[in-house]
């Protein structure tokens, strides 16, 4: 999945796939908190409509 979204032009670090069993509450909290921190650091998604539309219009113009 990471390699696919990278090919599409999305930073693969924006995706995380982890197996967490329903019996692993603390691990779940840790995994989510870490990922949220990471995403905050990377910043807003390039897929937000406004950002994306600008990129698309530049691509179409070129």
């Amino acid at each position, binding site marked *: 999945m990471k390699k*696919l979204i990278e090919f599409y*032009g*999305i930073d693969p670090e924006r*995706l995380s796939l982890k197996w967490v069993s329903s019996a692993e509450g603390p691990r779940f909290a840790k995994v989510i908190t870490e990922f949220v921190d990471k995403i905050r650091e990377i910043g807003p998604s390039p897929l937000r409509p406004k950002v994306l539309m600008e*990129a698309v219009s530049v*691509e179409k113009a070129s």
Partner: protein
Amino acid sequence: MIEQVKEHVKGLLASGKIAGFLGLRNDAGVVTPFLFKQEEQLDSSFSLGETESQGTMRYPMAKLALHLIQNCDDDSTYGVLVRGCDERALNELKRWNQLGNPDRIVQVGVACTLGLAEEHECRKPFPDEFVAGEKVDPQTNNSVQQVLAKDLDSRLAFWSAEFDRCIKCYGCRNICPVCFCNVCTLEEDALIKTGNIPPENPMFHLTRAVHMAGRCIDCNLCTEACPAEIPLRTLYKRVAEIIADEFSYVTGATGEGKSPLNILGSDPGHTAAND
């Protein structure tokens, strides 16, 4: 070339080996798939798909064969016209347990001309065995490398501009010889919002791409069919490369085997690369 195929099929029909032959017919210039049951029908309209104005017409013969096998009332055996891509598709359908008894399909192979192989940049323009045509060199398609040469932002802009043109006709899915599911994720409102054109992106196209992992046999039919001329194959080719790297699985090969994404239970030999 066409005469050799006709004679071969007539032999199969006459000997009772096959109950019918799934091929193509030219009806007043229009080429469509057709189930030939009598020798005379072959004489009057059998075609290899060549048309004057549009080049060679191709159809997903493997998918049609699958529908034929699934929907006919008896357990007869049928002959099917196969090019290299059709054979790869049949092989892949077998590996996904779709064909039931594979002996019910008798392949009648034709090797493609160099022109057709070049047009579709075909990786194997001939089936393992064929009754007509000559082996021409496999061709390569470099579109994946062209996208990989771009940086992340330009890739996103490129794909977004391409998929922005999608009119969600489902042509890519409908023509695809290895799209065999009875219920399609692409039509599930809960997963991909329905009623929008272009469809929700990148969800729509990445979903289809993921479903083509370990399946797409690179026939180029989807790209050829797409009215918006979206280079779909490039995306699925990249997916195939990823599957080959991760699982050493090549789609469409002849012989025993199973797609790594069609294995339930024990680990197919892949570790947590996505962690």
